[in-house]
């Protein structure tokens, strides 16, 4: 009988440890002295079953499962583990939300790994923040420069046009007032002003950089600097168009002043020299008349310089009336003048000068005699081997012959 009771209890204990489900113990089948032990084992069964359910929940990460009974001491350490897992879950959420101050204590290797992780995250975040601040500062500086550049670009008088090299669309124009798409036919201002817009749109030179000029008196003059650029990943031509009309006028005025004799308004020696160099270079046929106003020194000495100037003016006027506007008439010195005729021959020129002299003398109303001497040289461009200096010397020599005759005549008439 004792043996049967012990066997029954042993089998029950074995079942608690190894069976699932556990084979139940019927305490009433035990003899009275063994029933207390049977009840104890039944309590153990409950504690083990509870522990198994609890460990199953924890092993599957279910932290919201049923808690074991408070007095189930088999689960004491599991409860501690459960509490730690709850805490770690909360900490993981806080770390995910950016709180890297989370710290785990007294969990051995896990603590070390977790704390290293949060420390590194904190360090990386600090570095990232530092980098972000640096990038932000750089971006602010670039934005500032960009604003300045845009301001400078839009306020410039020049046109800055960027034309897509393939589609020929105008992708940028600094004269554009808003963000609307640019009219490929140019907006009103450019269409009106830039008569050569088609040339800009269809520009197709392979050169990297070119400066060219366009325009006329009516439309105005423009200097265009064109170069190849890459605009938003596409090849494009940048054209910087500058209105140089005023500059050109100013330059022309300056040139005109440089080539003009202020006393008479006709062109001067500098113009004569440059003009003759060009004539000789192009091997053009010309007739050069070298003239010297007789008695200018006498008039200046006797009647004063203003009368001398009037004498010169009357001579210039007489020449201008007598010669064609296509002939170049220049003052090359105080009383020396030159006429460069593009057409005609020496003899005809001499005759015209003789007629002019005759008429000049005849129509004189001044209180002194007027006269001029002249020498004529004919140059056949293709055959000519003389330089300007030699030509002038030759004409001067011929003029001097004339002067010798006129001089005597002039002094007789004083």
């Amino acid at each position: 009988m004792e043996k049967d009771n012990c066997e029954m209890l042993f089998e029950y204990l074995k079942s608690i440890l190894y069976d699932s489900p556990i084979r139940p113990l019927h305490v009433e089948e035990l003899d009275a002295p063994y029933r207390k032990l049977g009840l104890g084992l039944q309590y153990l069964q409950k504690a083990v079953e509870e522990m198994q359910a609890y460990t199953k929940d924890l092993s599957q990460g279910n932290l919201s499962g049923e808690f074991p009974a408070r007095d189930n001491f088999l689960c004491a350490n599991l409860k501690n583990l459960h509490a730690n897992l709850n805490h770690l879950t909360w900490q993981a959420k806080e770390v995910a939300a950016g709180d890297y101050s989370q710290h785990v204590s007294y969990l051995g290797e896990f603590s070390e790994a977790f704390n290293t992780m949060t420390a590194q995250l904190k360090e990386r975040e600090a570095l990232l923040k530092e980098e972000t601040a640096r990038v932000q500062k750089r971006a602010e500086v670039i934005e500032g420069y960009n604003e300045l550049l845009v301001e400078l670009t839009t306020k410039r008088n020049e046109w800055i046009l960027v034309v897509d090299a393939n589609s020929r669309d105008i992708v940028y124009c600094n004269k554009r007032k808003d963000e609307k798409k640019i009219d490929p036919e140019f907006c009103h201002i450019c269409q009106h002003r830039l008569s050569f817009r088609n040339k800009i749109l269809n520009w197709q030179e392979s050169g990297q950089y070119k400066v060219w000029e366009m325009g006329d008196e009516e439309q105005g003059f423009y200097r265009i600097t064109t170069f190849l650029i890459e605009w938003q990943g596409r090849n494009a031509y940048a054209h910087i168009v500058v209105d140089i009309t005023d500059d050109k006028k100013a330059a022309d005025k300056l040139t005109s002043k440089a080539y003009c004799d202020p006393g008479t308004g006709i062109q001067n020696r500098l113009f004569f020299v440059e003009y003759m160099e060009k004539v000789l270079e192009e091997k053009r046929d010309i007739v050069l008349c070298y003239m010297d106003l007789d008695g200018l020194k006498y008039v200046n000495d006797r009647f004063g310089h203003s009368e001398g100037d009037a004498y010169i003016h009357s001579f210039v006027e007489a020449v201008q009336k007598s010669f064609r506007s296509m002939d170049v008439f220049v003052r090359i010195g105080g009383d020396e003048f030159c006429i460069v005729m593009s057409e005609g021959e020496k003899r005809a020129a001499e005759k015209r000068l003789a007629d002019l002299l005759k008429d000049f003398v005849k129509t004189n109303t001044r209180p002194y005699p007027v006269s001029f001497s002249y020498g004529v040289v004919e140059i056949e461009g293709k055959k000519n081997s003389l330089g300007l200096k030699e030509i002038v010397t030759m004409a001067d020599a011929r003029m001097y012959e004339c002067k010798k005759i006129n001089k005597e005549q002039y002094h007789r008439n004083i």
Partner: protein
Amino acid sequence: MGDNIFLKNSKKPELSDYMNFNVQGRGNLGDDIPLAVYRLMEFSLREQLMEQLGREEQIQIFRKAGYRAGVYFAENMLDTSLSLNEFIAGLQRRMEELKIGVLRVEKLDKETGKIVLTVSEDADCSGLPLLGETVCNYDEGFISGILSAYMGKEYSAVEIDCWATGDRVCRFSAGPKE
């Protein structure tokens, strides 16, 4: 000797006066004391109060005393200007340094202000036998005092699990008083 003129009209001493002690007063023994001594005082006091005033009264006295200590602790030993998470991290560090226990947060609802936290290796109850009832009433008050001082509004904390009820940590559920 007669009356001490210097002590006449002096104000009633408060907790802060008692805490303003000179550490050098224990020049040889230092400022640590064994856990057994702390528990001897706590549980003898607990027993006496229960016997004299009843269980409910004893619990209320422990909670109120703990609350005073919690407020003092927060105001004098913690930085209440920190953000909530930083404050809790500071509280964890301080509690470990002073060997009060290992504080861990299980849940924190920032909208409602409700917190579930655990204290393991708690100075009051860790290692106690199964008594079938929670014993950390002083801790309940201590935690509500700390949270009230930090949050700027009244908090209450209730112990829901305890070593003495078979757990291995003390679990407190705290929230603003309605």
